[in-house]
């Protein structure tokens, strides 16, 4: 167990900037991987985790080069090997499971061929043995009907299945070390939980060492024996998983853990100020100095070394780590409670709304109607109160964004009505809406890179809605822009910046400011924090909550992340395949009795705690279309009671706490089943 298989020694990797300066993005990294051990490498985007992981395979991305140090695999330096030597090691001794298997499988080759390729390169098996091995491997990663699976092309598989194929391919060469770069990011929660479970099983079954790279402490917590925390290209903390997650003794890790929203707690997580420094802009002193609440003058001038703490078996890079040892007991409790200031008035009503993406047939086009018996979204009834935050949750394809687009008028509804203020009907056609309604409903998108014009400065971006809706100009316009920036906690000097000069969190804050510029009554938020790192996500969530409390805005908040939803929303609506399953006050949705689908979702949430394991109750199959009749969840439901689920749409049942569940099982019976 204690045999070291790969050891990184004082590794620095960098690139030459346009000004000819050498800039390092990995600085003096050393770590050891032992046999049979799973090491989690965690850090924010840009902290250098992928660079480190790839270097451990002797692979340096184009444009980068090693500055010093070595990567010793069984005491041979991978960085000095010829490509011929590396080909012998890659896939056979060290294998890689990529972040996005969908893009990492070659599109024109059948998956059987791609696995066979690895077998031919790394084993001596003959054709029939290899064929047998392929179905064995596909079976091992729990893919359905392995015999026919081999003859499919990558695009014919779902995201989770592609990831499984990538795992099978990596296992083909029986490697000693498996490298996983964000292997579950981008998968649905339930799929992610299943893939992680598979990886854990494989680690145990084969005794392979693993390096698991992720920004998600929840996923890391599920698989790792040891955790390495990276910040700005350095290791800041390293130690046994349980110690790191429960008693982090580095301020960054401490802050990171506190900024993760948790299922068990309502309210917003604390946010860390600032953002990670860019490579090249790191000065003398501790790289975390700007964001650290324990920082002293000493930290500004001197950079701490990685210090080994014997009793904790931990390495830490901080002068003041002792102060944290006492603070750690409040890791769970320091969460800001949020007030619910919703009023009894309803601002937005969705009544029997159905939306279809089906192509209109010629005659229907003439009659301007849509005839689709099985629309993507069906029978949505939600009344939204003023000042309320209502969340729509569900896996990808559940129709969350579709509903938002319809409210915004970007997508026509098939049936039903959308009513705004005093029961006034909103046209489902954007062009027919009056300007004041357009102003009153604003949308914030998932990806600020796509929604902010890269050729406009922040000032131009924010002045557009102010000019359009309020005819502001000159001094007044400027004053308003500064006000808006202040609201999202950005300084005046951001006005002249372009989106590319902003970090992800700053961009999303500009997008929030732009939405608020219209003084809207309702803001539709589409996965607004999914592209952000947790510490930044917490900051954006806090700003959204603060603005709402100050201005009385109503939010419709779409997310796939149940913990984030728990943190921000007052009420939750759970969707499966475009049909509502459950709706109720958020504290009740997270308590039993739940709709069987909510139960599945809740079971799959990964908490950054090695002691809370996900409960996998349903298969992670992907359904392409909602069923024609009966309950929308019939295809995957673990509690299905029989034909009635296939034939009849289940009735709404209202629990005593105001929680509505749509299932054929009696609500009290559900409660006792789920105990």
């Amino acid at each position, binding site marked *: 167990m204690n045999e070291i298989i790969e050891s990184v020694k004082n590794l620095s990797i960098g690139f030459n900037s346009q000004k000819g300066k050498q800039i390092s993005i990995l600085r003096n990294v050393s770590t050891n991987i032992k046999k049979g051990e799973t090491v989690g490498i965690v850090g924010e985007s840009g902290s250098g985790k992928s660079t480190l992981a790839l270097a451990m395979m002797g692979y340096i991305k*184009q444009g980068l080069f090693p500055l010093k140090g070595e990567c010793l695999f069984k005491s041979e330096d991978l960085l000095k090997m010829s490509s011929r030597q590396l*080909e012998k090691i890659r896939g056979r001794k060290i294998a*890689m499971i990529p972040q996005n298997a969908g893009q990492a499988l070659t*599109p024109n080759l059948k998956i059987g061929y791609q696995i066979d390729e*690895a077998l031919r*390169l790394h084993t001596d098996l003959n054709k029939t043995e290899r064929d047998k091995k392929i179905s064995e491997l596909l079976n091992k990663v729990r893919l359905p009907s392995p015999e026919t699976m081999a003859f499919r092309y990558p695009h014919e598989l779902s995201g989770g299945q592609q990831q499984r194929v990538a795992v099978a391919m990596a296992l083909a060469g029986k490697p000693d070390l498996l490298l996983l770069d964000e292997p579950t990011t981008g998968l649905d929660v339930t799929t992610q939980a299943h893939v992680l479970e598979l990886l854990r099983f494989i680690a145990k079954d084969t005794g392979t060492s693993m390096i698991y790279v992720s920004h998600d402490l929840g996923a890391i917590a599920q698989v790792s024996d040891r955790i390495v925390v990276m910040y700005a290209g350095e290791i800041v903390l390293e130690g046994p998983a349980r110690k790191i997650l429960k008693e982090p003794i580095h301020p960054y890790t401490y802050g990171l853990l506190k900024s993760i929203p948790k299922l068990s707690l309502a309210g917003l997580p604390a946010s860390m100020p600032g953002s990670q420094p860019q490579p090249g802009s790191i000065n003398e002193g501790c790289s975390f100095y700007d964001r650290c609440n324990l920082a002293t003058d000493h930290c500004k001038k001197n950079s701490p070394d990685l210090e080994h703490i014997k009793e904790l078996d931990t390495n830490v890079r901080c002068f003041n780590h002792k102060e944290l040892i006492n603070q750690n007991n409040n890791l769970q409790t320091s969460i800001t409670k949020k007030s619910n200031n919703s009023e009894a008035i309803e601002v937005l009503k969705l009544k029997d709304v159905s939306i279809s993406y089906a192509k209109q047939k010629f005659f229907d086009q003439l009659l301007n109607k849509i005839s689709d018996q099985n629309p993507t979204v069906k029978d949505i009834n939600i009344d939204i109160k003023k000042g309320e935050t209502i969340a729509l949750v569900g896996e990808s394809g559940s129709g969350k964004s579709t509903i938002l687009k319809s409210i915004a008028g970007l997508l026509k509804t098939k049936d039903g009505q959308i009513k705004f203020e005093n029961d006034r009907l909103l046209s489902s056609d954007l062009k027919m809406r009056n300007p004041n309604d357009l102003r009153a409903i604003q949308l914030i998108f998932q990806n600020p890179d796509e929604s902010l014009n890269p050729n406009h400065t922040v000032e131009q971006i924010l002045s557009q809605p102010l000019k359009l809706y309020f005819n502001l100009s000159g001094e007044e316009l400027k004053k308003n822009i500064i006000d808006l920036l202040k609201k999202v906690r950005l300084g005046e000097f951001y006005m002249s910046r372009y989106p590319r000069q902003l970090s992800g969190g700053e961009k999303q804050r500009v997008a929030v400011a732009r939405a608020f510029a219209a003084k809207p009554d309702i803001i539709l938020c589409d996965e607004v924090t999914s592209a952000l790192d947790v510490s930044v996500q917490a900051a954006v969530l806090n700003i959204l909550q603060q603005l709402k409390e100050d201005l009385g805005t109503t939010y419709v908040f779409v997310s796939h992340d149940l913990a984030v939803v728990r943190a921000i929303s007052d009420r939750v609506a759970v969707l499966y395949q475009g049909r509502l399953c459950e709706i109720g006050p958020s504290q009740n949705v997270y308590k039993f009795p739940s709709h069987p689908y909510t139960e599945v979702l809740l079971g799959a949430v990964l908490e950054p705690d090695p002691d809370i394991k996900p409960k996998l109750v349903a298969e992670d199959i992907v359904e392409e279309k909602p069923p024609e009749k009966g309950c929308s969840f019939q295809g995957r439901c673990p509690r299905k009671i029989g034909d009635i689920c296939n034939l009849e749409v289940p009735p709404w049942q209202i629990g005593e706490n105001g929680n509505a569940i749509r299932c054929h099982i009696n609500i009290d019976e559900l409660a006792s089943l789920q105990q």
Partner: protein
Amino acid sequence: MLLLILKRIGLGLITLFIVSLITFVGVEVLPGDACTTYLEREAYGAALDACIKRLGLDVPAYERYLDWASNVMRGDFGYSLSGEMPINEVLGPRVKNSLVLASVSILIGIPLAIVLGIITALWRDKLPDIMISTITIFSMTIPEFISATLLILIVAIWLGWLPGIVIIPSDATFYELLSNIILPVVAISMIMTAHMARMVRSSVIQVMASDYVQMAILKGVPYWKMVFRHVLPNALLPAINVVALTIAWLLGGVVVTEVVFNYPGLGRLVIESISNRDLPVVQALAIILASIYVGINLIADLMTLMLNPRLKSLQIRK
């Protein structure tokens, strides 16, 4: 899949129909008719009458269109005015000549373009790339008539290695043609190859940067194997349509090159018949060129469909 092919063919036929209508109507609305245009000042009396009779201009326009269209479908384009012989006999040798010029250029140019594109992409920013890329960009930017004239000047006049102008009758045999077309082929290939090589280069570079190529490297796939199995099939797929357009362009007659080299192909026929105001031939050429474009693009689309597994299974599932 079959339905899709039929749909595409149907669309092609509709395109051809529209082209035929446009050319027919275009000729119709011109002041005067084919005879007055052609005979010019001699358009009176017996000559005019005879011409009108011969072309059947005395019947109403729609009847003439139907007549003409049904003849065309049978492969009969009617009579040319200048040569006073069946258009088929005028076209036949020209089509053959253009075909010879085009196929030789294609056989040389396209493989060369693909090889150059791949070399420049794989040795990106290294010496081979810098050299080849400079040459391709250079030959892309010089207009055809200049490069063709320069070729004649250098190879034919200064060096005297090859005849500068093709002085063969339009019904020359294949072998006679071959020895005469070296310079035109070089002139055409220069531009065509350059354009295509650039496209292949950027396509290969894009695929080389993809996640699946990085994955193949990390899987331990040897370099050349990776290039042939993982990179090229995916990189060359988008090239099919460009190749198709180039072939159509070549078959349709490379007007400038043919005129400069005095080559008796379709391109020159276009110029000749326009300047002779030989409207029936112009009409016939329009239809033929349109058919070439439609046909070749159809083939290219079907090939893409067949080779791209993504589209293939999409179609089957539908």
